[in-house]
């Protein structure tokens, strides 16, 4: 808080510029709401409040704890403007190149944050499953998202979430009724295409599973070409009692892209969430994963793999709050850094006074392959209950020379040996991805990235 006070006392030039930019994007966008009409009043109120927060809150600087290692200057300098119009020129053939070969799924495509009906391939959905655009849902049946939309994220973990709430225009809604079961995964393709001037898309997504419902969602952030753009998305996930969600997120934004996502998760009793985050793309990517439990015996499993290469910054922030007894959480993140790549890992496990029998475990392991790469990791435990099992572990290291020697003595070239070892390191996370087609695809992508990396 003191940092915020400081920044408001002595605004730097960058902070000023940023504040102006934010206000343009969020504050002024508020009057225009998501639907064709003015949208439901409850949402309008939320959005006004969010716009107010954007206007009044202190702009984060390098002194803000949340942005200590993640500078905003590069983002500010781009001067992104709000993406307004939907992109309609694309056909199904255009997205062929970004598809995962052999992946059978109910496919949803969003282009620059807008739901692209024409590109979707939903197939037949089982009973009790609704998939559609946020825009459409707010027009036709706003009550279906009431009590969930904006309620899980609340004020969000930082300004960008408020910005999203104020400026959201469209997004994806997945609703599963009580006991609905989805056998095939839902594949969500967040496609970005470059525009004449750099745009920021601010979609808002919602996944809500009723009691005992089960689903698997695969989100993929992809782009056509090396476009420069920014994504600032928020996903809210509500899991009812006994619900199960398997969730994979593969971030393969273009190498010039800026990527900000927030995942806000609310878990009721006995629910289970298993998420795998793969961070490969973008020049600057920040992800916030926030979990709250609203019932006991819930389980949250967050895994991740990031590869940060030349001039890339990949930042994962985690905030897992145990407010109730008997819940368990696990965070397992691995990173490979090379070139001038930088990674930030900031995980917080908070155990409140009454959250006895909490089982929380966090680990972050990093491989640094080159002299200019950097990792800043901060795994934190904040514990106010005594009957808990909490631990965290962090490592930063390099490839063991003994391992390399072993492989080389068997006639494998140094470069290949390094790649093999890196893939082995990453394999643990990739294997958690679910469908085989996706696992193979990601392993191939990771392999290709490592091949480009100057590993020697």
């Amino acid at each position, binding site marked *: *808080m*003191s940092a915020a006070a*400081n920044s408001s006392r002595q605004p730097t030039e960058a902070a000023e510029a940023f504040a102006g930019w934010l206000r343009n994007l969020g504050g002024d966008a508020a009057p225009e709401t998501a639907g064709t009409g003015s949208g439901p009043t409850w949402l309008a109120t939320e959005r006004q409040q969010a716009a107010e927060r954007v206007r009044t809150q202190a702009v984060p600087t390098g002194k803000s*704890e949340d942005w200590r*290692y993640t500078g905003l200057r590069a983002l500010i300098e781009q001067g992104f403007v709000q993406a307004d119009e939907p992109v309609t020129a694309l056909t199904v053939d255009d997205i062929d190149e970004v598809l995962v070969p052999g992946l059978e799924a109910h496919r949803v495509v969003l282009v620059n944050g807008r739901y692209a009906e024409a590109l979707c391939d939903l197939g037949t959905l089982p009973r009790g499953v609704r998939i559609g655009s946020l825009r459409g849902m707010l027009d036709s049946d706003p009550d279906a998202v009431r009590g969930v939309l904006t309620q899980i994220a609340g004020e969000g973990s930082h300004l960008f979430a408020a910005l999203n709430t104020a400026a959201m225009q469209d997004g994806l809604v997945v609703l599963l009724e009580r006991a609905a079961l989805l056998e095939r995964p839902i594949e969500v393709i967040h496609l970005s295409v470059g525009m004449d001037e750099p745009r920021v898309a601010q979609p808002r997504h919602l996944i809500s599973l009723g009691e005992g419902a089960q689903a698997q969602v695969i989100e993929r952030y992809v782009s056509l070409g090396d476009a420069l753009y920014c994504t600032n998305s928020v996903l809210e996930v509500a899991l009812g009692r006994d619900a199960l969600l398997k969730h994979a997120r593969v971030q393969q934004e273009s190498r010039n892209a800026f990527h900000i996502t927030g995942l806000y998760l609310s878990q009721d009793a006995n629910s289970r969430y298993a998420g795998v985050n793969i961070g490969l793309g973008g020049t600057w990517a920040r992800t916030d994963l926030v979990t709250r439990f609203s019932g006991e015996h819930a389980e949250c499993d967050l895994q991740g793999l990031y590869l940060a290469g030349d001039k890339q910054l990949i930042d994962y922030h985690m905030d897992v709050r145990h407010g109730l007894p008997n819940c368990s959480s696990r965070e397992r993140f691995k990173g490979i850094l090379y070139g001038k790549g930088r990674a930030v890992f900031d995980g917080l496990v908070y155990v409140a*006074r009454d959250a*006895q029998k909490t089982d929380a475990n966090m680990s972050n392991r*990093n491989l*640094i*392959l*080159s*002299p*200019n*790469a*950097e*990792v*800043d*990791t*901060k*795994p*934190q*435990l*904040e*514990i*106010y*209950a*005594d*009957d*808990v*099992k*909490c*631990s*965290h*572990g*962090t*490592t*930063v*290291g*390099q490839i063991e020379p003994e391992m390399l020697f072993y492989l080389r003595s068997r006639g494998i070239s140094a470069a290949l040996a390094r790649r093999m070892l890196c893939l082995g390191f990453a394999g643990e996370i990739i294997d958690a991805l679910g469908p085989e087609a996706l696992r193979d695809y990601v392993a191939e992508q990771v392999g290709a990235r490592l091949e480009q990396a100057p590993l020697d």
Partner: protein
Amino acid sequence: MNAIPAAATTVENKADTTGQYDDLVNAGYEHGFITDIESDTLPPGLDEGVIRAISLRKGEPEWMTDWRLAAYRKWLEMPTPTWASVHYAPIDYQAISYFSAPKKKDGPKSLDEVDPVLLETYEKLGIPLEEQKALAGVAVDAVFDSVSVATTFRKTLHEAGVIFCSISEAVRDYPELVRQHLGSVVPPTDNFYTGLNSAVFTDGTFVYVPKNTRCPMELSTYFRINSANTGQFERTLIVADEGSYVSYLEGCTAPQRDENQLHAAVVELIALDDAEIKYSTVQNWYPGDENGKGGIFNFVTKRGDCRGHRSKISWTQVETGSAITWKYPSCILRGDDSVGEFYSVAVTKGRQQADTGTKMIHLGKNTRSTIVSKGISAQHGQQAYRGLVRIAGRAEGARNHTQCDSLLIGDKCSAHTFPYIEVKNPSAKMEHEATTSKISDDQLFYCRSRGLAEEDAVSMIVNGFCKEVFNELPMEFAVEAQKLLSISLEGAVG
């Protein structure tokens, strides 16, 4: 514990001093000033006049006065740090008297007048009678044993060429050494409390170990004659020249009587090529009553600079006292192949709060650091480990291992871990592990089924938990620390 009156009182005082009474008040101040110098106590408050008075009283050279004043001017601009997870009412720095001679007269006349609870604790710690008197602040006559012991020690040290004296003596007798090193590890501008300390420090220790000398004994403030009353703003400077070794013990296991609530000490260690400094602390100041009233605020900045190649600095601390502890003994591993170590046991119970940890800054090649931190939190105790491991780009082959374990006793206490890890070199190896748990029922049951009372069982388990750190303490210290730990946890269980 009335050293720091509520902030409200001073606001009134300040209001009085403004406006029409200005001249009168200032004039009066001047007068009061002189009177107080005669009785060796300065009135509460801090300004340049007070600092000059301290410097004058200490007979310091001009450069020292200027150094203090520069620190004071910078301090005025510095904000109070708020990032630590400790809570306390704002401190009024104008309500503190920054210089006062030892108040021996105020102490009890004999042990009969000392609080029996305190005596009971001494008994348990096995402290000899004469020492008990000294610790409780009883006026001791001249035949006190340890005075002669101390004199003998000084002779031995002198023969070895080791300088071991108060910082004030050092400023007078070895100005070159002090001037060269003072503030070179912890600059006055480092943080709010170092700024304050640099401006007003009145006591502390100076140690210089010459080249290729192994200090013939473990140095302890306890044996420095003029350190009967530890200063409120202590300044310690230890310089180990090439190839030397020194082990320094600070503090005492016995609870100490102390009238000052705010302690802002600065400790600077400098190790040149192949030198080694081992710095052990046992801190058991008054923690306040069970509601958290009173108690010492211990805001300390300790930093060691491994300036030379193959040098080593090792911090060991056992922190059981103080209402609030804010302390991060750190190592700057500048020289190639230098080694930094930090071993810590911290106990918080009652309403105690501790935010403690370390910084290991790896700059040189093949530098190694080890961090072992054990936190025990009971009753309403709040504890945080906060640490930084930074491996700079040129710290080729740097190695760090960190382990922070927390033990929680009771459901009202808390334990936090805030490690910061920044690695910029691919050949670095860094491991960090942390766990938080309570004493398991199985462990307790096992001990109890073998006839141990619950309290003894807990004490045994806790001692086992801390063993790694106690092993690093000098022998007799370790034994005392173990006893201290059991006493600290008495009544905390069940």
